[in-house]
């Protein structure tokens, strides 16, 4: 680039770098907030296996394929798998975390409206991966 002026390209590269810095900073800030688990979040143990989801509440209640939670409460999922990799996903609440054998991954959410949402597996896990689905049922607070 010697011997001639290239200032439009430098401005352009500068603008691109500035946009990337902005995207990175915003993402960093948002992720930092999202990862902060609120205190007192109720723990739900999530187990993925070929090809269904099992849930265990703090009080020992177990559910298969359906998960009942209360509106307005915060929940922390402790996710693991007993066979191959799965990915626990409630798309409507942007809950996504891999279920990996030998590890426990955590993610939290707090439902803010009563309703039903799909739970699905988002990591390829074999034959019935397409139908490894469940339902999240958000209910009014019990008391």
């Amino acid at each position: 680039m010697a011997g001639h002026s290239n200032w439009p390209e430098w401005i352009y590269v500068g603008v691109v770098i500035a946009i990337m810095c902005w995207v990175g900073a915003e993402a960093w800030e948002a992720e930092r907030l999202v990862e902060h688990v609120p205190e007192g979040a109720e723990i739900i143990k999530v187990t993925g296996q070929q090809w269904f989801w099992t849930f265990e509440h703090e009080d020992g209640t177990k559910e298969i394929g359906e998960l009942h939670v209360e509106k307005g409460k915060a929940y922390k999922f402790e996710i693991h798998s007993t066979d191959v990799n799965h990915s626990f996903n409630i798309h409507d609440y942007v809950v996504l975390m891999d279920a990996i054998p030998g590890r426990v991954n955590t993610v939290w959410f707090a439902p803010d409206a009563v309703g039903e949402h799909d739970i699905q597996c988002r990591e390829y896990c074999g034959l019935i991966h397409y139908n490894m689905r469940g339902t999240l049922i958000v209910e009014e607070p019990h008391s």
Partner: protein
Amino acid sequence: MVLELQKPRPIWQIMFSTHHTDVGLLYLIMSLGFLFLGGALALAIRAELFLPGAQIIGDAMTFNRIFTVHGTTLIFLFIIPFASAVGNYFVPIMVRYKDMAYPKLNAIAFWMIPPSGALIWLGFADFTWYATPPYSIISAPGPAADMWIFGLKILGVSSVLGAINFVVTILKCKHPDMSIGQVPLLAWSFLSSSLIILVAIPTFAAALLMLLTDRLGVTGFFNPAMGGDPISYAHLFWFTFHPEVYVLVIPAIGMMYEIIPRFSRKPIYSYNSGIFAFVLLSIVGFSSWAHHMYATGMSFTEKTVFMVGTLAAVPASAMHVYNFIATMWNSRIKFSTPMMWAIGGIALFFSAGAGGVANAAMPLDFTTHDTYWVVGHFHLFVMGTIAFGSIGYLYYMYPYVTGRMYNETMGKIHFLLSFVGTILVFFTQHVLGLYGMPRRIFDYPPIPEWIAMNQIASIGAMIIGVSMVVFLINMIHSAGKGKPANPEDPFGVGGKYYYPFESKNPSH
């Protein structure tokens, strides 16, 4: 330039030749064959997903095998061998040497590919192109999985041999009058991508061996039941295959660097910034592999590091786009078929890159990860950018290879249908991903938005399928019956090649 098909020769003379244009021709024909095979599998996938419920593919296992072989075929048996075809034809000519540095090694590297293609196709494995453990260890049916592993192993060796050959040809065999700063950008793209291969591939080669011994039950590297860790496979895999993305895309960009100045009738705007961006990409490409793994439970710090590494690759890619646009600016462009493919490819490259920035941003990735967004995103690279650049270059080299011109009208129809089809399929898949549809699913619940998006995508795929028929007819028919090309200036753009060592760009 050697005219291949004007002097009929017995086929065994081409097959057992070690001359760079003969090996290039073999690469070319084989890669196009796999393009059509892999494309047919894509059409089967899209036909299956047109509606919820089983359509044409009877069961999930067959579907899983089809998308696995589709991905493996088009990446390893179309894109990489096609780039090798172009490199074989053009790199020795561009560095003004009589052949590749090691002609026999060159032929060996080619002849390793058909057996590995046969292993992949006869096995028809089902564990996705990523072969994710522990599924691939404890669940994937053999012998398909083992055949896939051996197939990829052989392909890896072939890639390394090819890469060594390109590096030595460019660095050691170039004409003594020519400095490395005068080598054309297409050859530079092969130098960069070959160096990436040499650094990246050994990691995956090791991972494949570990996967194989894990499958045999003698080790437990990735098997949690034996104390192993599946995440370590993900690191080894993506350490090879994120840089591999640049191995695929850099030669395609190099091909655009050949086409765009030629049809703009102008030298490239900035030769040095092209080299700078190639070198930068091939270094920065190694700093971003774990952005594929945000959802595996990485810490906040790890995610931040890999997000920064990913975003750092964007300015280098953007420099290429700038270079192309600045070259076309104020020039007398001739919109022949190769130029249309190159311009379409740049537009889709930009779109793919913009979508990639969204993936790289940590919180957004949890919306898009492993959904159809990702499928749309990387297909805009592999189809929209790499296949577009490659097919454009195929039209560009066609008169030099066959001595005849392709049919220009059919070439343009092929481009227009493919461009519209690509937008319909892959832009729609981005939206489908935002609606939450996971990748790699054989069937889906009848959610109205999912059905509508899938139907648009399937129609787009059929349009691409039609365009490929036009392409095939054009290629075969014109090779025998096309009008003879003028080897000095087949596209009638006048002037001469503006290689940097011949001419300075007068505009700056």
